[in-house]
């Protein structure tokens, strides 16, 4: 990057995205630096190992998933360990992102009509920072969900160590948490890929275009621009 280097890197944006965030490089803005992306994908990968080993045990409707891992017995063996890995990864993600995810006063509305209006592309909110209210709520829900899954899962892992009634509730909590999580993840993936083009790039390359930032996160866009101007001055 710097002028002192003998050779200019081929792709300055990617180089910048290794360890810097919220900076402009050409027409791109770095949104997630490398460490953020690695953390996010370790959460996603462990989550999906849990999903594909857990769902065939969950109901025989998803029994076919067991073949991905070599059968139901292997699934049963892997699932609790994948769960522990998922919890650890989620914990790291939680600590890593909590600074950016402080809830703002209007966020509660994202639980209701605002989310639907957002999905209909009807909102014209120019006050969206690096993450919108829905993303922040998802972040907190995911953290809570990870704790719920871990605690109930531990009971199911070692049933004889706990009273039977508690176990009946553990299964209930594990199930309810999973259903909510799964539905949320379907929409998370949809929004992160097909529904909002350019977003997936922020999790693989690390960058977004200025236009993407201005459309989806206008306040963050303004902050990044003015920050850049400050730095130039």
């Amino acid at each position, binding site marked *: 990057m710097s002028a002192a280097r003998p050779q200019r890197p081929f792709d300055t944006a990617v180089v910048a995205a290794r360890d810097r965030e919220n900076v402009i490089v050409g*027409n791109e803005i770095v949104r997630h630096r490398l460490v953020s992306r690695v953390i996010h994908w370790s959460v996603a990968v462990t989550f999906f190992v849990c999903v594909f080993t857990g769902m065939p*045990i*969950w*109901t*025989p*409707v*998803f*029994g076919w998933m067991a073949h991905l891992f070599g059968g*139901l*017995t292997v*699934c*049963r063996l892997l699932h609790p360990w994948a769960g522990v890995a998922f919890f650890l990864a989620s914990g790291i993600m939680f600590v890593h992102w909590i600074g950016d995810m402080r809830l703002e006063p209007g966020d509660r509305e994202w639980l209701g009509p605002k989310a639907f209006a957002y*999905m*209909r*592309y009807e909102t014209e909110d*120019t006050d969206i920072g690096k993450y919108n209210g829905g993303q922040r709520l998802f972040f907190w829900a995911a953290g809570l969900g990870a704790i719920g899954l871990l605690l109930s899962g531990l009971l*199911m892992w070692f*049933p*004889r160590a706990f009273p*039977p009634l508690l*176990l*009946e*509730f553990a*299964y*209930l909590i594990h*199930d*309810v948490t*999973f*259903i909510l999580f*799964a*539905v949320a993840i*379907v*929409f998370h993936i*949809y929004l992160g890929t*097909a*529904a*909002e*083009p*350019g977003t997936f790039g922020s999790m693989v390359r690390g960058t977004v*275009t*200025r*236009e*993407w930032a*201005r*459309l*989806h996160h*206008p306040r963050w*866009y*303004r902050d990044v*621009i003015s920050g850049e101007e400050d730095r130039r001055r």
Partner: protein
Amino acid sequence: MSVQQNLEIRRSSASVWGSQSGMRSVPTVSKYIDTTTCIGCKACEAACIEWNDLRHIATEQTGTYQTLPTLHAEYWNLIRFNERDFDGGLVWLMRKDQCMHCEEPGCLAACPAPGAIVQYANGIVDVNPDQCIGCKYCETGCPFDVPRFHQTTGKMAKCTLCVDRVSVGLEPACIKACPTGCLQFGTKDDMVALGARRVEQLKSNGFTNALLYNPEGVHGTGVVTVLAHGDHPEWYQLPRDPHVPILVRFWKSFLRPLGAIAIFGAVIGALTHYTKFGPKEVRGVDAPDRNLPDA
């Protein structure tokens, strides 16, 4: 133990279709246990170990004559010794603890592995180790605390009602070994009739609360037990009103199918959204009235 070759199956765990092929009608079988004539000799315990080739495990001193504190993956048949103060004296109660082979088995209801727990047409509830994944769900489902996880095989283990003997016309090993005749084996109807006769006898002998333990909550059991003190099943360490835990039924047969629909629904919802609204494109917003700094 699984001897499924010749046995008609009435119910199978985690089956998408449900139950009974019903090709042949087979009478339901049952064990009969008379706690009033049990002498605590443990011949049935020894016979169970012998026939099922169970490993010999170390016994544990519990302060009574009881062999172990509870059932074990290598010990499917345990005489429980209980002492109670009664009527100014002491009663010494022995009860054969084992799988009850419920009409409505909680273990089977809870089991998530297709075919890992089956109920044969003759009523015997059996673990099929080929299909069992050792998840221990059945421990939560069983109202009698019967199934045990086997550390070496990684599968659940419990009394099979000697299905391998019964299916070739023999009585279970414990029945064969009992020297007092307090254990009997036959059709459920015959065993219930036998129990009713014995209960009448006990009542006329002064045990007015005598009862044949065949609990309704699980639609009756394939092991019926005569209790002299039928008003106190807990004296024998038997639950008063056993039933398949209602929460287990709720999450297993209602919440999980509902959750599957919710997940499919979310996927369909996303596809519908994509078709109706399409992606939120950057080019859609270069409207002049957007008062934002230029890119």
